């Protein structure tokens, strides 16, 4: 009987087996990375209604985070400051600046500035700023070097796995409470053992059960 396929067709079964196995692994890896917030969300830097520069205010001028985000220590929700907070200074400084026009308008009319939220969590995940701040999780740990950002940008994935990394090993991330708003803080060389000691002393037990955040 004549041959239907050429000799090289003998490779086909092996190749297709490899393709199936390799394709399966590739699909898993693809979903693992490309469907994760690390790929889809990190780098999100929307244009804001006012070209407010954290680099200038928090970086060069050295204004503390909590000057504006006042409730971060006491409330679950970290507030975006009211227009009044801007005007504390800007009724004296740069009162004629065109860039600040929307701020003055907001102040005059009482309508809020429509800031665009950068760090979004899903509705079914609850996060409390106060608990984290008072247990030594720094602003920088989740929000990155805001003092160097012209426009605020999402630098961490804020995914569940990312949360769990710290909840499982808090000693690798905590710092003393008076350093939480410090940008560019350098951990001392023995920080892990210090943190372990603190975790034991203060009985810090970050929950990893479902209902810790999903309730």
């Amino acid at each position, binding site marked *: 009987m004549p041959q239907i396929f050429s000799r090289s067709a003998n490779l086909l079964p092996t190749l297709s087996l490899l393709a199936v196995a390799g394709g399966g692994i590739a699909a898993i890896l693809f*979903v693992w990375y490309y469907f994760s917030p690390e790929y889809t969300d990190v780098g999100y830097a929307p244009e804001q209604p006012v070209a407010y520069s954290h680099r200038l205010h928090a970086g060069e001028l050295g204004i503390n985070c909590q000057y504006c985000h006042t409730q971060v220590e006491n409330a679950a929700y970290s507030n975006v400051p009211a227009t009044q907070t801007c005007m504390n200074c800007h009724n004296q400084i740069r009162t004629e600046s065109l860039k600040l026009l929307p701020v003055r308008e907001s102040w005059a009319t009482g309508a809020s500035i429509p800031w665009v939220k950068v760090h979004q969590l899903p509705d079914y995940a609850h996060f409390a700023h106060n608990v984290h701040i008072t247990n030594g999780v720094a602003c920088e740990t989740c929000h990155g070097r805001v003092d160097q950002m012209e426009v605020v940008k999402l630098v961490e994935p804020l995914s569940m796995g990312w949360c769990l990394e710290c909840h499982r090993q808090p000693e690798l991330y905590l710092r003393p409470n008076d350093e939480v708003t410090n940008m560019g803080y350098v951990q001392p060389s023995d920080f892990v053992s210090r943190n372990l000691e603190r975790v034991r002393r203060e009985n810090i037990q970050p929950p990893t059960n479902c209902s810790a955040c999903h309730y």
Partner: protein
Amino acid sequence: MDDSPLFGADLSFHEITEKVSSHTEKKTPLAWYAAFSIANIGLMILLVMIAYLFWNGIGVWGLNNPVGWGYAIVNFVFWVGIGHAGTLISAILFLFRQQWRTAINRSAEAMTVFAVICALVFPGIHVGRVWAAYWMLPIPNQMEMWPQFKSPLLWDVFAVSVYFTVSLTFWYVGMIPDLATMRDRATTKIRQRVLGVLSMGWTGANRHWRNYEKAYLLLAALATPLVLSVHSVVSFDFAVSIVPGWHTTIFPPYFVAGAIFSGFAMVVTLMVIARKVYGLQDIITISHLEKMNIVILLTGTMVGFAYITEFFMAWYSGVQYEQYAFLNRAFGPYAWAYWTMMSCNLFFPQFFWFKKLRTSIPFMFVVSILVNVGMWFERFVITVTSLHRDYLPSSWDYYSPTAVDVLTFVGSFGLFFTLFLLFLRFMPMVAISEVKGIKPEADPHYYDGHGDGQAGNALPTPAPGASTTA
């Protein structure tokens, strides 16, 4: 078993090839289109119902507070159970050298694969947030979240997916020599090429046969534990919980017996039709059907024995909740379902004690359908009656399915028959090479002696050429 020949008529090798492969080669008969259209309507119903479900959420089903598991799990267990006959026939009967299996094993294996596909639909669509259905599988993800390895529902995922993979491989590997036969008969270039790819370069060489038989034996050995394990794991979905009526150790063997019972009934239903329509009465004989009916009788009696044992254990345990659960089954609001199950599964198969009845085609057709009705109701009774009156009498309720529930189930038959009709049309529906292999002529010594098949008797008589002249 009697020694009657497995094949009524004396078909030659060529006639077997001809009879089986010609159905895939001739022009598609009109009746096939008619059947296929009906099956497709069913499939469409299924797809529309699934789309409706996805759009609206599982509120469109009849689930209520105590009955959180309804049609979806009932249908899932029903379809997985049907699949068990295929594995039993192809693996266990193969290892036990039950040669009568060759007439039916191909279609039973096909039935297994398609039934498992139908079964897999239900856990896939019942999760509410369907886009998260992949959470059932242990795939690394950004949540660093893994399935609950202590849950029998996860064991189920593994059991059924392994079962599907092995059944599919088994079915396909067994088909390779027959696909090659069909390839060699192909008249068009495309057909030859497609079948050529599917038959993986089979030439019928000695080495090919040796590898094939070894692979088939290994697969049979691998699949054998699955016959017992898969439905045992399915039964753990219930038995590992602490609901009275579910929490019993008898569940695994009882589920396995029930699965084989329903699977054989489905094979009988399908084969009675297929052998008639495709003129395969010489290959799938009354003797084969009778043997399957004996299996139905045996497993049906085992299942019935389990039903009665459950009652005994409820009484013997002295636990009032357990006792109530079973009394409620038989005499509560779902008594109608319970007695449907009892009569279909325990009572009707008993008629197969009579040879006249178990060899009667119309009778076995009716009973085989009743058995599957009964087996569906068995899962319904187990699931719903145990749940609808739970520990808290204030939350007792009556569960009734909605139209969406019923139509989804009806639609799953559409999916099943669509696949089965495609199989009948395009694949060798009987294992040609295996059927040939059990013919007397396949015995290497058949042509010793007089060529009359009496190889054993050839010894005392002299060989034909050398004998008579002296």
